[in-house]
């Protein structure tokens, strides 16, 4: 696509980007795959929107299979996911021990 440079005067932001807020973290969430039922509540309540619940299709509809991924580039380690988890499957652990 042909482009040309256009100058804009005055205050505005033209780049959509993220701060690497993961560097703030002093504790990090650790998920116990055995306890996790992939209910998605942690994803719903994560303020940074970095929790992704990935469900696989299985033959037995009652049994959920899959995993929960957290983007550690941005996770601030607030601990809300661990707090809202109804199955105690998330533990906040010290970054230095991680």
């Amino acid at each position, binding site marked *: 696509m042909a482009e040309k440079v256009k100058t804009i005067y005055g*205050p505005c932001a033209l780049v959509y980007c993220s701060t690497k807020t993961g560097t703030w973290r002093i504790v990090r969430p650790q998920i116990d795959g055995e306890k996790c039922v992939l209910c998605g509540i942690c994803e719903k309540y994560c303020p940074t929107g970095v929790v992704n619940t990935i469900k696989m299709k299985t033959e037995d509809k009652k049994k959920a299979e899959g995993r929960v991924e957290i983007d550690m580039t941005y996770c601030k380690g607030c601990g809300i996911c661990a707090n809202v988890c109804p199955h105690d499957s998330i533990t906040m652990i010290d970054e230095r021990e991680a």
Partner: protein
Amino acid sequence: MKKVMLEGNFAAAEAMRLARIGVVSAYPITPQSPIAEVLSEYTGDGRLDAKYIRVESEHTAMSVAIGAQLTGVRTGTATSSVGLALMFEMLGVAAGLRLPIVMPVVNRALVSPWSLWCDHQDSMAARDTGWMQLYAEDCQDVLDLCLIAYRAAENGDVLVPTMVCMDGFFLSHMSQAVYVPSQQDVDDFLPPYQAKNLKLDIADPMFVNNLIPPTEFMEMRYQQHTGFSNALPVLNTAMKEFETQFGRSHSPIEPYCCDDAEAILISLGSMSGSVKEMVDQYRAQGKKVGNLKIVSFRPFPEEDLVAAIPRGARVGVLDRSMSMGAPAGPVCNDVRSAISNQGLNVRIQGFVVGLGGRDVRPVAITSAFDRLLAGQYDKDVQWLDMSDNAMTLRQYREAI
């Protein structure tokens, strides 16, 4: 083009209608109210195709104008006095966002004391907010300067909002014969508005007016300064184009009988007519005096102004406001600065006249001219046509 009797307020509203403003947000204030009223009438009866937002304050009036203009619409608002003061915060936003909003300002004194009447303290208090300021001498000026203002302000090299100032009551409520151009002529002069710079557009997202670090702030202010540097030649061109289109000439400064003048009074706005009348009377007596009217106070036409003053002439400035704590009124301070910046050594006498609705009477003008002609100079600003009992206006008896 037809000639109709119009008060200054209506001349401003006619210009705004002819400029096809698309969003109107005006809050009524004496003596500007007729502008807010007539624009609502125009939008109501279809003479103006615009959205009329009946705002609850002048602060909101300017905020609405800014929001709407960012979407790519020519907007219209007008105010006066304390209304302009309430708008103050948003004046800087309009200027910083480079939105070429054109706003008639009906000059009225600021509080306190309360006054409903004319002086220039309101617009002078706003002179550093980054707006151009044009001052009208009569009702025709009001209409013409508004149209010129749109043309100059919206120029891509300028993008500076503009106040078109008219003296409260003296012009706003004075009926004069005004040539009103046809819509076709104005359409030829003023193309439809386009957002050339910052904008709110779903198809081209940007975040406007976020926090700017010290590493960029000065540069953005410099961009505004450059807009003003470009403004003067653009304004001159716009005035020449206006003359071609409509046959009336305007200029950022207008000298009257200055070429051979021994004494010159510099003035703004409606009082310039009175000064010119006195110039004629003095000339009839063989006294060489002149008037230099500043139309564009911002940008300040420094070079042209200094060039219009013949060598050896004595110069005084009639300020219709005072810069408290400064050597003189704001216009005088700027003229002194211009003279010095152009490498001249001329003493400029400061005068304060016509505050809070007081007429600038012949007695004030003659006393100023006579002082200049007599070679009298006082480094202190002279307050003209004042009561002798200025310092003892109110007294009462108190038990000892």
